[in-house]
C-alpha cells in the first residue's frame, strides 16, 4: 500500500506549474481590443497569477517592431493574469513573457517525483546512472513563454524573430501558413545557441472539439478525443498547492511538506523510460505536463511536430542542468510556445463566419429576397 500511496501523494503535492500564453482566438482583427491570458498551471487551468515584478520582459512584436508592454496593461481575475492590448496593422504577431529566476529547495524524494511528473527524463536518468537519487536539490528556475497569433490576413515575418530569452522556441515556418496535417519544424535555442538532444513535448487542445466540464462544482469535462483528455479539473480539489502568494511556485511543497515524506526506494517505482510513464489517470488526482508528442531536438537544435488536428498547439520543454555551487544545485529554464492551427480559413470552411472573411450575411438575405421576387414575378406572370 505504501508503494502506491507515497508516489501518489508526492505526485499530488509536487505538481508544478507550466506557463502558457493563451488567446481565445488566435485570429484577431486589426485595430481591435484583445486579451492574452497568462496561465500558470496546466494548459487547461491556471493555478495562480504572476506578479508584474516577476516579469523581466513582456514584448509584443509586430511588423518589425518590438514594443515593451506597459505594466498597466495587465490585470488579474481568479487565477489568470490578463494582458489587455490593442492590435494594430495586420500581421503575424508575437508576444513573449520572460520571468525572473526564483529558487526552491526540495528533498530528494520531492525532486525525483517532480522530475518524473514533469517528464524531465534526462535528469532523472542521470541521477539514476550516477547514484544521485538521494541527493536533495535547490533549483533555480525561470520561465520564458511565447505565443504567435495572426491579426488580419497579412502574414509578416515576426514569428521567426528571437526575443533573446534564455530558452526560446523559434518556428522555422509561419504557423499561420500551415494547416492541419502539416508539420512544424522548429529550433530550440538555449542562451542564443541551438540546444541539441533536448526533450520537447508538443500537444494541442482541440478548438472546437472540446469544452471544459468538471466534476467539481459548476465544472464539467468532456473531451471528444483521447489525445485531448488532458483535463485536470476532475480532481482539482485534491491538489493541495499552496498558492496563497503568487510568487510561490508549486515546488514550494518540496520544502514545506516534502520533507515529512522520507524518500524511499519505493517512491520511484515508475518506469520513467517508458514513453507514457507520466500518463497518470485522473484518479491519481495528479496532472501531467507530458502528454502529446515527445520530440527530441537534433544536433542543430531542431525538431518537427506533426500538426495532426485543429486546435491550439503548444510546444513545451524544461531544460534542467546540474550547477556547481554552494547553494544552487540545479538550474532550469522553462519554455512554451502556443499558436493555433486550423484546417483552412478560406470561404469553403465554416470556421469563421462569412461576415468576417467573406460575404456578409445581409448579402445573403438581399440575394434571397431578390430570388423570391424573381420567382414571385414569374409565377404572377404565369397566372
Amino acid at each position, binding site marked *: 500500500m505504501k508503494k502506491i500511496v507515497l508516489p501518489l501523494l508526492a505526485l499530488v503535492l509536487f505538481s508544478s506549474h507550466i506557463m502558457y500564453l493563451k488567446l481565445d482566438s488566435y485570429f484577431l*482583427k486589426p485595430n481591435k481590443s484583445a486579451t492574452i491570458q497568462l496561465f500558470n498551471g496546466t494548459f487547461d487551468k491556471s493555478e495562480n497569477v504572476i506578479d508584474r515584478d516577476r516579469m523581466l520582459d513582456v514584448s509584443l512584436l509586430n511588423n518589425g517592431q518590438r514594443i515593451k508592454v506597459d505594466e498597466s496593461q495587465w490585470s488579474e481575475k481568479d487565477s489568470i493574469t490578463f494582458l489587455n492590448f490593442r492590435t494594430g496593422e495586420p500581421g503575424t504577431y508575437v508576444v513573449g513573457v520572460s520571468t525572473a529566476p526564483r529558487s526552491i529547495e526540495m528533498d530528494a524524494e520531492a525532486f525525483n517525483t517532480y522530475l518524473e511528473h514533469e517528464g524531465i527524463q534526462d535528469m532523472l536518468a542521470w541521477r539514476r546512472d550516477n547514484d544521485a537519487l538521494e541527493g536533495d536539490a535547490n533549483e533555480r528556475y525561470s520561465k520564458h513563454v511565447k505565443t504567435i497569433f495572426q491579426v488580419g490576413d497579412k502574414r509578416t515575418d515576426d514569428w521567426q524573430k528571437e526575443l533573446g530569452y534564455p530558452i526560446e522556441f523559434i518556428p522555422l515556418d509561419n504557423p499561420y501558413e500551415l494547416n492541419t496535417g502539416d508539420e512544424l519544424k522548429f529550433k530550440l535555442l538555449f542562451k542564443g545557441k541551438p540546444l541539441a538532444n533536448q526533450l520537447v513535448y508538443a500537444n494541442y487542445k482541440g478548438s472546437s472539439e472540446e469544452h471544459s466540464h468538471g466534476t467539481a462544482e459548476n465544472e464539467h469535462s468532456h473531451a471528444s478525443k483521447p489525445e485531448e483528455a488532458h483535463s485536470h479539473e476532475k480532481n482539482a480539489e485534491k491538489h493541495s498547492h499552496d498558492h496563497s502568494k503568487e510568487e510561490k511556485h508549486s515546488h514550494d511543497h518540496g520544502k514545506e511538506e516534502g520533507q515529512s515524506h522520507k524518500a524511499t526506494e519505493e517512491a520511484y517505482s515508475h518506469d520513467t523510460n517508458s514513453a507514457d510513464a507520466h500518463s497518470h489517470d485522473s484518479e491519481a488526482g495528479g496532472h501531467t505536463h507530458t502528454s502529446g508528442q515527445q520530440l527530441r531536438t537534433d544536433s542543430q537544435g531542431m525538431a518537427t511536430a506533426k500538426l495532426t488536428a485543429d486546435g491550439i498547439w503548444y510546444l513545451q520543454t524544461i531544460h534542467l542542468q546540474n550547477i556547481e555551487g554552494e547553494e544552487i544545485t540545479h538550474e532550469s529554464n522553462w519554455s512554451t510556445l502556443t499558436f493555433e492551427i486550423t484546417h483552412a480559413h478560406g470561404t469553403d470552411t465554416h470556421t469563421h463566419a462569412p461576415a468576417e472573411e467573406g460575404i456578409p450575411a445581409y448579402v445573403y438575405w438581399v440575394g434571397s429576397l431578390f430570388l423570391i421576387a424573381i420567382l414571385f414575378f414569374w*409565377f404572377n406572370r404565369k397566372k
Partner: protein
Amino acid sequence: MKPSFKKLPVTLLFLFTPFLLAAHGVSSADQEILNNGGLLSYIYVGAKHMVTGYDHLLFLVGVIFYLSGFKDIVRFITVFTIGHSITLIGATYLGIKADEHLIDAVIALSVLYKGFENLGGFEKYLKFKSPNLLLMVFIFGLIHGFGLSTRLQSFDVGSSQFLAKIFSFNVGVELGQICALIPIVFIISQWKNKKSFDSFYKATNLYLIIAGIGLFLYQMYGYYYGGH
C-alpha cells in the same frame, strides 16, 4: 422565347449559390463577446445566431406558411421550441455533438422538406399524404436544437456557470426567434388576403426548396472538402 418553368429553379440555384454558401458559423468576434460579457453575452449570441442563422428561420417560414390562425402558429412554434430546447440544453450539457456540416446538412433538408410539403409535393409526386406536421415539427425541432448545440459547443464556453450559459444561450435563441417571427408572421398574414398570395406562396416555397438544396450541397461539400 419564354424560358421553361422547369429550367428556372435550376438556373436560379446556380445563380444564387454564392449567397447560399454564406452559412452562419462560429465567429471569433462572438467568442470575444462571450469571453467578456457574462451570461448576457450568451443571450445576445444565441439571439444573433437565431436571427442570422437563416436555416432555422427558413424552416419556420415554411411552417408558418402552412398554418392559418394565430393559435395554430403559437402551437407549432411552441412544439418547435420545446423540441430544440431539449436537444440544445441536453446535448450541450452532456457534451454530445455531431459534425457541424452533417447536422447542418440535415437542417438544410428540413428546409427542403417544408417547401416540398407546402407545394403539395408528397401528394403530387410521391402519391401519399404528408406525415403529421406537428410530429414533424417536433422532430425537426430536435434536429435544429442539436445543430444549435453543436454550434454552442464550438465556442470555448469555459467551465464556470456552464448550465447557466447553456440556458442563457437558449433564452437568446428564443428571443431571436420571436424577433424574427414577428415580421415574418406579419408579412405572411397581411399578404394572405391579396390576389397575389398564391404567387407569393409558390415563390417562397420554391425558394425554400432551392435554399434547402443549396445549403445541403454546401454542407456536404464542406464535410468532404472542409478538412474533416
